[in-house]
């Protein structure tokens, strides 16, 4: 497959038991693009993200990442792909509580077997970059929601992933904090040239994206680009 897209899903179906979460969703994400995936609760947008990121295997349909078919890869290969090429920021529950902020940021590098010193050297600048200079030695229980989310962002970007998946990254934050996190996210993604898939139901968050698609009843709708009257 040699389309210009970095990530593409075609006619993806996924059911949980008798609940059909996705029924033929198709998405294409261009390189360097920030794509918002919108839709009401239960529409299947998170499931779509999990399928795109190789966490779930779709029941039917194909997922391609940069010329590789993701959905047929083995669990180990998909884990490697997630580790090396993807980053994740979720609403919460993603930091390892026993580790400090800096440990958490360095974690993906350590998991990828980067030497310890190098991993920490690579992780440390992110503290400053995200305004966390004071909090490197704090455990996640000692961080505020916004700080924890910034640590999660740093951790998602520290290994220079090609694709960043975020699911309601500001869902648990107040307006201003959410804005700060989104600003940092977009700025960092632009600087690093990272492609972003941003799942949100919040229009003001979606407005940070270049483009949006709407998931409704398990189908992804690319909105018509009709002329403005």
């Amino acid at each position, binding site marked *: 497959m040699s389309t210009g897209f970095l990530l593409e899903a075609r006619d993806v179906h996924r059911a949980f038991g008798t609940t059909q979460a996705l029924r033929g969703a198709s998405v294409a994400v261009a390189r360097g693009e920030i794509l918002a995936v919108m839709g009401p609760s239960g529409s299947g947008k998170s499931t779509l993200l*999990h399928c795109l990121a190789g966490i779930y295997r779709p029941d039917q349909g194909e997922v391609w990442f940069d010329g590789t078919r993701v959905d047929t890869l083995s669990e*180990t290969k998909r*884990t490697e792909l*997630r*580790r090396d090429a993807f980053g994740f920021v979720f609403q919460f529950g*993603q930091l390892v509580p026993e580790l400090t902020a800096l440990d958490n940021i360095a974690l*993906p590098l350590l998991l990828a077997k980067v030497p*310890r010193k190098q991993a920490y050297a690579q992780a440390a600048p992110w503290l400053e970059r995200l305004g966390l200079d004071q909090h490197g030695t704090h455990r996640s229980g000692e961080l505020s929601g916004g700080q924890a989310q910034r640590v999660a962002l740093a951790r*998602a970007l520290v290994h220079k992933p090609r694709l960043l998946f975020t699911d309601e990254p500001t869902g648990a934050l107040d307006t201003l904090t959410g804005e700060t996190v989104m600003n940092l996210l977009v700025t960092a993604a632009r600087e690093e040239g990272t492609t972003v898939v941003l799942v949100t139901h919040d229009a003001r968050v979606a407005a940070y994206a270049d483009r949006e698609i709407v998931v409704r009843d398990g189908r992804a709708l690319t909105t018509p680009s009709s002329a403005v009257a």
Partner: protein
Amino acid sequence: MFRLGLSLTLRGGREAVTRLLLTTFAVLVGVTVMLGVLSLFNAYQSTTVRQCWECSPTTVDLGAQGGGGPGSPTKAGAADAGVDLAAVRQAGAKELWNFSQDFYQGTELRRLDVAALTADAPAIPGTARVPGPGEFYASPALADLLASVPHSQLGDRFPGHQAGLIGRAALSGPDELAIVVGHAPDELVKRPATQAITALSTGKEVKGTTNIYRFAFAFGTVSLLLPIVIMVGTATRLSAARREERYAAMRLVGATPRQVSVVASVESFVGAALGAVGGTLLYLVLSSQVARVNVTGTRFFPDDVTPRVWGYLGVLVLVPAAAAVVAVRSLRGVQYDPLAVSRKATPKPPTLWRLTPLLLGIVLFVVAVNMSTSDYSDLVVYPALVFTLWGVVSAGPWVTMQSSRLLARHAPGAAATLAARRLADNPRATFRTVSGVTVAVFIGTAVAGFLPSAVRAESSGERAPLTNVLRLRYDMGGTQISPAKSASVLADLRAMPGVSVIPVYLGTDTSAWNPDSGGPPPEGWQPPPQYVRCADAKALPALGTCAPGQDVAMIAADELFIDNPLLLRLPVMGYSDIDRRTGAGRAAPVPTGVDVSQLDITVLMVTSSDRAALEQARTYLDLHAPVLLGVGSPDQWSTNAIGPMTFGEVASVRQEMLRAAQQMIFSGVGLTLFIAGCSIAVATAGSLVERKRPFTLLRLTGTSVAVLRRMVFLESALPLFTVSAMAGLAAYAMAYIAVRTIAPHAQMAFPVEAYTLTVAAVVVGALAVILGSMALLSRMTRSENVRFE
């Protein structure tokens, strides 16, 4: 990855430290107990490899020369008390050998009389050489006795002087009584049942109890390991939900399942390794105490009581490895789903079907005890026991659930409701933590109900007066006491203080049949009649009574030498024979015109209320009217009841097995209870750590610590007591059925006091353990600790 796991374990904050401490504690206790059991098992094993020097030796074969007595080569010689010294020397015999069994105050005494024929005569292990004439070697315990007990009671039995001690190679424990007495060859040939041998037996000891011990040890070890494994498993699974969350987060950022496994196992491994090292150190501190533990009823040599190198190595390597494996297994759910922030599913409630194994077991058991005479009963008894034990464990969750429902219905209040809900939600997990106690209670109650009752039945009721009666039988290849000799023997015995003697005289056999011919007795053959003087028999009314004016009575004396006192039928006077199967006696006519003073004495019964006098009589008889067995070595005895034993000793030989089993079972039950208690502590503390957040929230919303404490207490105590009560009742019922079937009129000799004390101690201990682990509760749930990360 290893360092990451290590830093998660050691720097992971208070919660991680608590978890680490709990794991370490659980493993420490488990390892200490395991090492103790292992070393006792080793000590026991080393007794079973003891060379059985009293077993049948290699005798010289005289058959070719025909120089020995008639018939079979040496056996005949023994029976005839005639070994042709010259012939056996020529056939290459190296030693004359004569083994006999004696008793002192209820303890078996093994006696070997030897005479060296050549310079290389085989000596028993533990002695450098064969004792010369007039010398003997005694075991250390016997040497102590010889030094402290008057010679008339013990020392006079052995001619000569002590030349040394028997080394431990010949003994299975430090308390064993054994002696090797040296003789001149021409003196020893005169002793009946002497054999000429070329080599000692090199076989292993074949005690009737060996297999039972081995089985009991294996079973006990397994049944002890199980609670240990459960406890260690509980400790490693602590806060599983929280850890699953963490591992899911790691999976999300790209940790492979293998990396997660490494981190998880490092965490468990560190705790288990610390525990294993600590447990080993604790064992080393306690090891001198372990050597004193009396498991089989006889002590072990202290330096045999050691786990050995492979034991230490096994514990130090296997336990941490096993903990790591358990940790990895408990993570199976997370392995494949990076999003699995544990979806909690309520397991299906246990159904009434869980009671089937228990009912099946009890039914089988009733069937088994009712077919007790059949050979097949073993095939039913063991499945019955297994089913019942399994049934108790299987029924546990159901009982837990039912009791929690009762609690919910009848005990209003927040604490009861919360506790009942949690119990009903997962009765299996709750029961698992108390299952060790349940099993221990079951086994303990069954043993306490059955064994003492069975033991008491053997020496109670009509048999009680016989307990301290020494009985000797002279027709088993020994020489009957001739009328010429009997007068002085009887007079000497009767001269001892408080001693009365009841001789049984052997009537003349009117038939021409000779048992040594090997052929069957002719039709209508009757054994020669045995007589007892009515005047003598008055000393022991249990034997029966004479009619007024009667002088001599027939007596079925064979009956007195049965090896199971439970089957002994009394009275025996007035009968010529007693049917073993039905217990019905064949009434004998009152003998007339019999002058017993002209007859040989075939059986002697000596009674005395004073045990010292009894030993004195035994010593006297050993010298002047010895009972000599027709068959030389213990591996050939068909019964253990032919030596110069009291009826009480016969029973106690028999009971030795039961007592040892009881001892072992109680040791096992005690240890299981201890482990189970620790397991409960670990589980309770673990459940608190796990539920820190909901508890803190409950406190924030105004729930008092007292309510929480009551709730946690109910959660552990309710299943503990209901299920234990069920196990205890089931076990008592089984014991009752068994006792009533084996001895229909026996009373239950349930050790009420000891049992109550033990139960009370267990209850208090369990409550203390539960309450102790709740010390965490109020500190843990202080509202300033609320954090939502």
